[in-house]
């Protein structure tokens, strides 16, 4: 027998190729098969037979339905086979199938086999188990959908940058900077407050050098051109063992919080100022009170009583938020320690008017001194004595004025004191100083009369 490379026979290249194909088809994990034009399997490789759980002899010659495919599945392949034959073009699809490996998802490609006469003589198919890939794709799609939803849901400004922060994209979230998109390369100069630029660029350098999260609180020019405070944090993205490729970050608008902190700080400063001032007032009261008396017990009683009315005035002003206080309440606060159950000793009459806190405090202290004096020497020291406190609005020298008149009646005959004490000085000079008006204090034999005239402005009593 002549031997030639082209000749047929077990040693020929053509025969070798057949053995190669057969070997590969038997070992491939893919399913390989062929249908004749009557849709009967004429070939099934080992992987397919194993999936069916059938032997060659059991399977070959049967169609899908006879193999045990669900009717809808068999009908689908029948249509596809017809289509491939008619169009001479491949068909591709994916389908779930319950085989011996359980329910898996298969990606299949059906293609015409052209015979020597140029006609389609069969339809061949190859099918791959893509369950893992499909599951992975589903998981990734879900994860991406969730991330996208989070970015949409957040009120933070979400951004990404390249490795060195020269490119910054606003990818979602807050519209603080206007529409989302890529910032211009000069964003640091354009958008970051001049006082915060060094802080931001130092923090970028530090974060890049150490590959740790970027964290900064800074001001940024918002869409309406105002400065907004943001708390910004970004994390580096880098492949394991590789260099940082990009950063992802979020910036929270903390303008409200910053404003609140500033208000708190101002409030604390103001409180500190007020407390220190009040302590200095207490110091002054202590000095005046101690100096005026040789009797420590009496001096202490007076000090205590002055401290008490100062406290009451503070309480009253606090109820009015330290803005302004009605004169009526100021008077009531001042006389409260001297009001007894009978309640008939004072007559209060006047129009509604407010004083600012400092003047309210001064007037409370002054009226308290008048009360104390009246209790000890004046109208309130006698059962029949009474005090009229009336205030009116009058015009003096062309100016709108508040005139408050304290008038004692029914007390013992008044003897003018030899020397002006703390109370009298507080009333005469203190009120003039604080109210900016005129004060007269007269020790008339019928009773003490004090008249306070203070110019008014629209708000209350002007200095």
């Amino acid at each position, binding site marked *: 027998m002549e031997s030639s490379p082209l000749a047929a026979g077990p040693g020929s290249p053509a025969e070798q190729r057949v053995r190669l194909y057969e070997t590969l088809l038997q070992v491939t994990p893919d399913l390989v098969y062929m249908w004749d034009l009557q849709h009967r399997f004429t070939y099934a490789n080992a992987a397919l037979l194993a999936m069916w759980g059938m032997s060659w002899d059991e399977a070959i010659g049967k169609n899908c339905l006879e193999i045990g495919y669900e009717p809808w599945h068999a009908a689908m392949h029948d249509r596809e086979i017809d289509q491939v034959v008619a169009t001479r073009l491949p068909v591709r699809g994916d389908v779930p199938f319950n085989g011996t490996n359980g329910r898996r998802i298969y990606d299949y490609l059906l293609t015409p086999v052209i015979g020597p006469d140029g006609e389609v003589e069969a339809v061949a198919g190859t099918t791959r188990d893509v369950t893992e890939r499909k599951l992975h794709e589903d998981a990734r799609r879900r994860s991406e959908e969730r991330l996208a939803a989070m970015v949409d849901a957040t009120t933070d400004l979400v951004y990404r940058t390249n490795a060195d922060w020269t490119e910054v994209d606003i990818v979602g979230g807050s519209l603080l900077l206007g529409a989302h998109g890529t910032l211009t390369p000069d964003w640091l100069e354009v958008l970051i407050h001049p006082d915060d630029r060094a802080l931001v660029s130092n923090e970028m350098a530090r974060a890049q050098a150490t590959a740790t999260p970027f964290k900064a609180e800074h001001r940024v020019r918002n869409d309406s051109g105002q400065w907004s405070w943001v708390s910004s944090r970004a994390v580096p993205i880098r492949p394991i063992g590789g260099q940082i490729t990009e950063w992802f970050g979020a910036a929270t608008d903390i303008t409200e919080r910053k404003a609140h902190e500033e208000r708190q700080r101002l409030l604390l*400063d103001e409180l*500190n*100022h*007020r*407390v*220190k*001032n009040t*302590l*200095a*007032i*207490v*110091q*002054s*009261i202590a*000095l*005046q009170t101690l*100096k005026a008396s040789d009797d420590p017990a009496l001096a202490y009683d007076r000090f205590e009583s002055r401290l008490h009315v100062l406290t009451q005035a503070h309480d009253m002003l606090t109820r009015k938020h330290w803005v302004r206080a009605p004169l009526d309440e100021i008077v009531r606060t001042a006389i409260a320690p001297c009001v007894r159950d009978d309640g008939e000793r004072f007559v209060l009459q006047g129009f509604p008017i407010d004083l*600012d806190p*400092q003047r309210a405090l*001064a007037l409370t*202290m002054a009226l308290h001194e008048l009360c104390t004096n009246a209790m000890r020497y004046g109208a309130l020291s006698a059962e029949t004595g009474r005090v009229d406190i009336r205030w009116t609005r009058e015009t003096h020298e062309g100016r709108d004025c508040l005139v408050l008149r304290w008038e004692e009646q029914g007390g013992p005959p008044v003897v003018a004191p030899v020397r002006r004490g*703390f109370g009298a*000085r*507080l009333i005469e*000079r*203190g009120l003039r*100083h*604080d109210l*900016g008006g005129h004060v007269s204090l007269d020790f008339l034999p019928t009773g003490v009369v004090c008249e306070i005239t203070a110019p008014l402005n629209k708000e209350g009593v002007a*200095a």
Partner: protein
Amino acid sequence: MTADAANRVFIVEDEFMLVMLLEELLPTLGYAVAGSAASVEQALTGLEAGEIDLAVVDVNLAGNESFPVADALRERGIPFLFTTGYGQQGLPERFADAPVLAKPYRRHDIEAALAQLRTAH
């Protein structure tokens, strides 16, 4: 301390109780009170009229800063010190070297501060 020249102190303070405190304290330290003012306006008028050697100026006059008064004092070469319920902060740069007494101050604090003003001048 003698009651010789350069002992007249002008008080700029909106709180009358504190004016009274200084009016009590200053004579015991050998100073005379040259007058007092409760506002920037009053203080500037007072400066025009009065013969003043030294001044004690409250930083906050009923919510207004007293710096125009301090500027006027400096212009006239009258040494002054600030009193304040706030800390040292809040003073403008130009007054960085001005002495500041924190309220409430003790008798010997104001004594030392005024003596310092006189010698430094």
